[in-house]
């Protein structure tokens, strides 16, 4: 299983904040995972195509082409605006 999380405007666009899914066969990096999620429909395709999104794996921001593994927590979110 992998834990997926979506924050802020992305969470609202997708209508979901977090979910647990089985890591699909043949998916071992972020581009493949994103592509797999984008097959869910147009809203997913568009929302995850946003180049400004950051991705964190296990609560660390990582490059968009990073590898992933079973058990990871993967989060997508727009640029941060705290403070």
């Amino acid at each position, binding site marked *: 299983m992998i834990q997926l999380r979506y924050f802020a405007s992305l969470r609202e666009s997708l209508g979901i904040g977090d979910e647990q899914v089985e890591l699909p066969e043949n998916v071992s990096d972020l581009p493949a995972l994103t592509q797999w999620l984008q097959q869910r429909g147009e809203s997913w395709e568009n929302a995850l195509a946003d180049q400004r999104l950051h991705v964190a794996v296990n609560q660390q921001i990582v490059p968009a082409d990073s590898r992933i593994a079973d058990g990871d927590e993967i989060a997508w979110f727009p640029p*941060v605006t705290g403070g």
Partner: protein
Amino acid sequence: MIRVQTVDFNPADELEQLRSVNNGKAGAMVSFTGLVRDLNEGDNITQLTLEHYPGMTEKALAKIETQANAQWELTATLIIHRVGPLQPNDNIVLVVAASMHRKQAFAACEFMIDTLKTSAPFWKKESLQNSDRWLAPG
């Protein structure tokens, strides 16, 4: 010390608390308080909602504190950030750096709030009279 919380904090009490444990070590204490503004881009703000990434947020803040302490000679640091719905003039964030040296306290405090704004996972949503909008980095 870092804290992420929905409840309000009192910058005055926090500073007094830091001062009481300081016990004569630091000669300089610099604080930054971020407040909810009632006006942004010409619009009246009725509410500001802070979302965060529980777990990652705390790690990001702890890392900022660690970086500041590595770069400057500090006797104490503090970061408190609120989450959830806030009203105009509410406290959002308090960052404090104490040092024997005033320049270092200023530099460290400014570094911590600057870094927080670009790297800690918080997101702001403004409520206007009839609509909401997510803020983009400014």
